[in-house]
Structures are given as structure tokens and as C-alpha cells.
């Protein structure tokens, strides 16, 4: 009965206190996951800090989740000073020194989101409640990102979104504790439209097929608005069910509508199937209005493009990042773009560890982890409000996308957007897309207030 201690998981996990004897219960009335004396949820008190990597490990996005997980493991290695350091060497902020975060070794726990918001929240809660995770990151869809972000806000931990492209994540559903590095639908529209107009002309008639849920709506709207501003006409926009696998009945009427461009606002399995179906119908060999019929896929993912195989050849889309930046490329106007050193560092350390190049999901997850660690170090604290303030308005470079701003108003990163096209002559199964244009950030930036929503204040959980 000597030694009365109030304790958190972190202490015991860290192993600093062997046995605390019989302890008195303590009542934390004010909030959910309060951490008592430390002033915020899951304050790390031992010599380690635990991050929660919450990615889809089962379900259709499992491969994407697996790639995210590889990137996280790589990031943890680099933070702990193992491996070649990757993009830490190119990162403009030099706060991180390879000794973990604030001198604490980085440990991590993993969970399966199943790409369902309930499962994702359950998994995130277990990381927070059971494993004492101080930050949650990952995910491969906007539904999950919004759900987990709201949870982290409530629990008082930082959420660093993984792959989520809907405007809502940092728009109407934004939360102070949530941060997104990935780009969004609006930026896709703004970046893609000029390239499309350039390649296909200004008097095109577009037919949209849109996945019937929030992300689809925002993407359709963004592409529609930006292309119409350049003179395109939208003939029709048809909503397709999420569970649809065969899109033939949606694609067959396209030719009759007089449209000469088909925009597929689909992602993942939907995208693979609708694109495959569209190509099967021979749409791309047709001439409509004396123009070659074209197909556009606003959001590309290399992993998914692989599923569509040869069907992606020549098809435009946008992406957050692509490994070929590491080698440099020639853009649409014939201008040579030099290799990006940061991307090269990342591709090298990822490729040497795993044997293939990283996906954009892997990239954004890696970057988010590094950014979080850097913010903690600069803030000299793990406290969410301090970390958040360090991220807000933070300008950085050397993480693969060029100069980037973490905007304070909505916690959205602003950086150049890549417009890519399916490669005609791929040299390997990873070499499916080629970058045709880097749309400068000025063209894709927007006013933070246009999507509504309320950031609220930081929640530290105590």
C-alpha cells in the first residue's frame, strides 16, 4: 500500500515503472480520454511514443492499405535514425535528427479500417484507448477520413489524413485536430481543365458518370465547373451506384447523347470497371462531332490503374504525386523537367526496401508522418494544440511536391498538382502513368470559406 500511483498505459509500456502496487482509481470527469497530469490525451511519459496507423487491410482497398503501411514503417525507421533517412535529408525543416520524436523512440500500432467508417473508428479508438496512440493516420477513402477525423477531435489526438480526396475532409467536415496533405476534388478540377482544353480543344461536350456518394458529387462539381469555365458543355451527369460492377448500361448511351468526352468520376474498383467497360465499348475509336472521342479519369491511382491494365493508355487524370518525378520528364509543351531530389530520395529508400516504387498513397502517408514528427519537434511538445499550431501556416519544401503550405484556415496542404496520362509504352508493371504537367499551386488555390464547415478549436482531451 506504499506506493500510490495514477498511471497511463504509456508508462507501463515504456517499462519505467515496474510495479505500482495497489493504486487508487482516479476520476477524470471532464473529458473522454484525458491523460491526467500531462494535460492531454495519451501524453507519452516513457521513452517511447506510439503512433496509430489505421489503414484498410481487408476489403477492396487492402493493397493500397498495404502500401500505406509500408510507407509508415519506412517513416518510422527514418525517424528513429535507421535506414538511409529518405526525405528527411531533403526536407526543408531540419528539426528532426533521427532520434525519434523529441528524443522518444517512435513505436506504432496498426489496425484495419476495412474501408468502413464504423470499423475504422473502432480500430482508431482501440489505438487511442488501449495502445495509447498519440496520433492517428491513414485511410483510403473520404468516408473513413471524415469519421476518424471527428473521432480524433473528440478524443483529443491529432489526425493526419491518408488518402482522402473529397472536398469535405477539409471543407464542410473539417476539424481542428485533423490535417490533410493530399489534394482534393477542387484542385483536381482546376488543374485538369486547362490541360484538357489544351489537348482536346475548348468546344467539347462532356458526359459525366459519377459515383453516387459525397466524393463523387464534389469531384463531378469541380470538374464540371472548371471545364465549363473553359468553354466545355456538360451534356449529362449520371449517378452510378457504389455497388455497381458492370457499367455497360451507363456507358452504352453515351455515344447517342452527342457527347465527345466521357468523364469517369469513379475511384478504386468502380474506376477500374467503368474504364474497362468504356474501352470495351470501343468509345475511344469513335469520332463524334468530327472529334476523337476521349475519356478522362479525374483521380488516378497507380495501384488501381494497374487493375485496368492497358485500358489506361492515353487517358488523362490527376494525382497527388508520382514516382516518375524522381527521374524527371518532358511535359506536354515539350519542356524538360529536372528530376526532383526529394522524390528520388523517397523512391530510392522505398524501392530498395520493398523492391517496387511507392504509390501516391504511400507518399502522402510517409509525408504526413514526417510532418507530424517535425511539428512536434518544432513545438517541443506532443500536445495537440501545440502540434497543430506548429503545422498551421507551415511552409515547407523537399517532400516531393515542391513548396507547400499547410493552410491555417482549413488545415489543407496547397502545392502543385500533377496531371498525368496513361503511358503508351510502359516498361514495367509500375510504369503506367506519365506526368504531363505540373499545375502550379496558384492555379488550384481557393478561398477557405467556400466549402463551409467550422474548424473549431483544438482539443487536447484534458
Amino acid at each position, binding site marked *: 500500500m506504499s506506493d500510490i*500511483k*495514477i*498511471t497511463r*498505459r504509456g508508462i*507501463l*509500456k515504456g517499462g519505467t515503472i515496474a*510495479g*505500482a*502496487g*495497489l*493504486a*487508487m*482509481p*482516479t*476520476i*477524470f*470527469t471532464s*473529458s*473522454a*480520454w484525458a491523460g491526467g497530469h500531462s494535460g492531454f490525451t495519451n501524453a507519452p511519459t516513457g521513452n517511447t511514443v506510439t503512433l496509430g496507423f489505421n489503414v484498410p*487491410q*481487408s476489403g477492396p482497398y*487492402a493493397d493500397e*492499405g*498495404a502500401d500505406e503501411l509500408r510507407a509508415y514503417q519506412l517513416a518510422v525507421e527514418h525517424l528513429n535514425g535507421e535506414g538511409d533517412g529518405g526525405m528527411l535529408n531533403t526536407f526543408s525543416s531540419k528539426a528532426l535528427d533521427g532520434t525519434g520524436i523529441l528524443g522518444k523512440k517512435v513505436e506504432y*500500432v*496498426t*489496425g*484495419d479500417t476495412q474501408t*468502413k*467508417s*464504423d*470499423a475504422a*473508428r*473502432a*480500430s482508431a*479508438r*482501440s489505438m487511442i*484507448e*488501449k495502445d495509447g496512440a498519440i496520433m492517428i493516420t491513414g485511410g483510403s477513402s473520404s*468516408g473513413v477520413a*471524415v*469519421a476518424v477525423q*471527428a*473521432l480524433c477531435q*473528440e478524443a483529443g489526438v491529432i489526425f493526419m489524413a491518408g488518402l482522402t480526396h*473529397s472536398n*469535405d475532409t477539409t471543407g464542410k*467536415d473539417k476539424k481542428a485536430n485533423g490535417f490533410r496533405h493530399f489534394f482534393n476534388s477542387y484542385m483536381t478540377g482546376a488543374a485538369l481543365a486547362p490541360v484538357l482544353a489544351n489537348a482536346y480543344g475548348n468546344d467539347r461536350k462532356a458526359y459525366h458518370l459519377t459515383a453516387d*456518394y459525397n*466524393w463523387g*458529387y464534389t469531384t463531378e462539381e469541380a470538374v464540371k465547373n472548371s471545364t465549363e469555365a473553359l468553354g466545355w458543355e456538360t451534356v449529362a451527369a449520371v*449517378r452510378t*451506384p*457504389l455497388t455497381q460492377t458492370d457499367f455497360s448500361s451507363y456507358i452504352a448511351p453515351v455515344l447517342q447523347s452527342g457527347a465527345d468526352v466521357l468523364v469517369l468520376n469513379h475511384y478504386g474498383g468502380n474506376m477500374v470497371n467503368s474504364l474497362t467497360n468504356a474501352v470495351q465499348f470501343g468509345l475511344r475509336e469513335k469520332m463524334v462531332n468530327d472529334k476523337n472521342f476521349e475519356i478522362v479519369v479525374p483521380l488516378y491511382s497507380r495501384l488501381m490503374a494497374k487493375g485496368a491494365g492497358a485500358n489506361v493508355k492515353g487517358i488523362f487524370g490527376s494525382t497527388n504525386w508520382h514516382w516518375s518525378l524522381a527521374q524527371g520528364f518532358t511535359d506536354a509543351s515539350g519542356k524538360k523537367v529536372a528530376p526532383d531530389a526529394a522524390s528520388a530520395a523517397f523512391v530510392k529508400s522505398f524501392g530498395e526496401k520493398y523492391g517496387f516504387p511507392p504509390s501516391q498513397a504511400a507518399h502522402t502517408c510517409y509525408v504526413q508522418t514526417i510532418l507530424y514528427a517535425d511539428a512536434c519537434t518544432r513545438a517541443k511538445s506532443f500536445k495537440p494544440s501545440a502540434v497543430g499550431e506548429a503545422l498551421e501556416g507551415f511552409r515547407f519544401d523537399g517532400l516531393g511536391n515542391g513548396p507547400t503550405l499547410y493552410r491555417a484556415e482549413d488545415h489543407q496542404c496547397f502545392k502543385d498538382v500533377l496531371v498525368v496520362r496513361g503511358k503508351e509504352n510502359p516498361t514495367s508493371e509500375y510504369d503506367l502513368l506519365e506526368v504531363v504537367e505540373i499545375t502550379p499551386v496558384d492555379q488550384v488555390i481557393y478561398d477557405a470559406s467556400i466549402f463551409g464547415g*467550422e474548424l*473549431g*478549436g*483544438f*482539443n487536447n482531451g484534458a
Partner: protein
Amino acid sequence: MLGLSKSDIRIFLLVVVLTIFAPFILNPFPEASGLAQFNAGYPDLMQRFVIFGIFAIGFNILFGLTGYLSFGHAAFLGVGSYAAIWMMKLLTMNVIPGIIMSVLIAGIFAVAVGYISLKRTGIYFSILTLAFAQMSFALAYSVLTPITGGETGLQPKISDPRMLDAALASGEAPRANLFGLEMGTSYELALSGWVFTFNVGYYVAAIVMIIALYIAIRIFRSPFGVMLRAVKSNQQRMRYTGLNPKPYTLAAFVISGMYAGLAGGLMVAMDTQVGPERMFWTASGEVVLMTILGGTGTIVGPILGAGLIKYMENILSKINADILYEWFAMLPDSIADILVFVIYPFIGKGWHLTLGIIFMCVVIFLPGGLVEGGQRIGNMFGRKKKTEGEKSSQPAE
């Protein structure tokens, strides 16, 4: 006692004791040990155990007693959740109105779905319920987005009206509470290497589950329960005995729909968010599996089944290769590699595989579900007592 027979009261008290001491029972391993991975005594999972327990108990009232296999029960869970979150958004973050409304709305929805679906029996009934649930899911995901929030679902927002609540202090977020006692509040007890968490939300949900279980036992043992089993046994004889099976099955359907709604409401109370995939057919299938896995028509079976599936989903899926290597750290590398190679496909992202194998093993070796397994173990130790009064319902002398 409590109007229950001796064997029932034993089971009931056992469940009550297990529920009260769950924070201890589910955390058997010291925090710092490698086996702590298997601890399940944290608030979220404990809450899920009891909530899905309620869902399965309710489902069992329909399926276990009347034999009608509904493949759309998740719809009621979802509808209950939406009702609860709207009460929280519009009225108050106090969970009581939300829970009451979730039961009511789910009940009304169940009357409508049940009235139509019960016009058919057997697999035709199953497909009708499935069709209703899938329509609810598809519409909630897409065209009903203004009401349901679509893919991203609904969460309480700072800007919600909450007409009964006082305005929030700035920087405060709306939190679910019971007359000011927040669901997320936890008490912690550290005993040498162990940490036990006592969570308000869990105990609220646990009390609701105990009440729900008590009502279910009463229903099982009531004349109404006998009639429901008669529906399963022989509808022809029932009709010629002057009984109308329709209202009985409809009543059972609505009661079990209300249980599902209650579970949905509690889910929102514990974790303030709703997404439409809660109504997807796999969610309906899950409660069917929970019930069969535990033991159809038994009192505690569905709770056990729910517990096992949720345990697998939340614990097994979190074990990754690094953790395995940590466990086998004391072994030589080559042996550790082999062990990890053998075990790895069954854990982490392979947790579904283990689940599938367990389904098959249980149904092959324990036709009566986990409850039968429990009985066999009980018999092995020479206990003549019937753990489950169900199959040998004797009049109390």
C-alpha cells in the same frame, strides 16, 4: 427470484457478474507483457461487446424462437442510429431521448417491413427483408444524403441547434452524456502490472444490455415465447388450435427490430457517428452469424457469438508481423521466422481467414454453437446441471 426459474437465474446472474467484472476479466495480461495484445478490456471494445450482444439477443428472439431468418436486421440498427444522432443534433446530447427515439423509430420501421415481409415464409421472407435493408443502405448512401450525410455519415457539430442544451463554452465540443456524466469518462485502476479501465459508457450500455437480456429471458419463458416456438414448430397445428400465427410473428419481428434499434441508438451514444454501411447486407449477415455461432435459440449464445466475432475483428486484426517477432524474440531467428511465416497469414490482415475457419469448425464440431461447447466442457467436469434450460424445458415442480 425475479420471476425466473432456478437455472435461468443462474445464467442471468452469471452474465451480470461477468458484465460487471468485464474490465478485469477482459484484461488478464499485465500491461507490459507481450500477451497484452490479447487484452480486450478497453472501453470501445467492451462497449461493442454489449451493444452487439443486445443486437444478437434481439435477433435471436425472432430467429431462435420463430425460425424466421431475417437477412435485413442491420437496417433497423441503422435506422435507430440515425434517429439517435438526429435527437442529439436537434435536442440534446443527453443520450436518453436519442435511445428512446431509436427504439421507437426502429419499431415503426419494423412494423412496416415486417408487415410486408411476413406475407411470405422461408427463404422468400429472408429475401424480402434483405431487399428492404439493401434499399435502405443504397438510398442512405446516395439520394438521401441530405438526411443521412451519405458516405461520410453524420456527427454532432458545434453548430447544431441542440435546443435543450445550454450553449457550449467556446472550444468545447458536444459530447454524449447522461445528465452531465460523459460517456467517454473512464476511471482507471492500476494494480502492479495491470491497468483496468472502468468506463461510464460501458456501464451504461451494460446496464441496458442486462435489462435487455432480462426482458428476453422473460419473453423466452412467457406464454408468448411458447407461442413463438409453436410458430417455428408447426403453424398448421397452431391455426387449428385457434391461434393466429401472423400477429405473433409480427410482434416478434417488431420486438427484435426494436432491440436492433436500441443497439443502434447505443452505438451512437457511445460513439457519436453514423455511416450508412452499418446497414449493408454484410452487417445483417454478421448478426445471423453471431447468433448461429453462439447457439440459436439459447439465451447466452448470441452474446457469446457477438463477443467472439467482435474480439476477432478488433484484436486479431491489430496483430502485425512486428508484434509476432517481439513475441518470439527469445527464440533463434530461424525458428522465429518459421513461426511468423506460419502464423502470419492468420493474423492482422488475415483475420478474416481465421474467422472463416472458426465458422466452419464450430458448425462442424459443435452443431449447437458455442453454447454446446460450453455444455460439453461442463459435462466433462461431471456437472450434471444443464447450463441451458432451453432444450430440456421442464416445468418447475
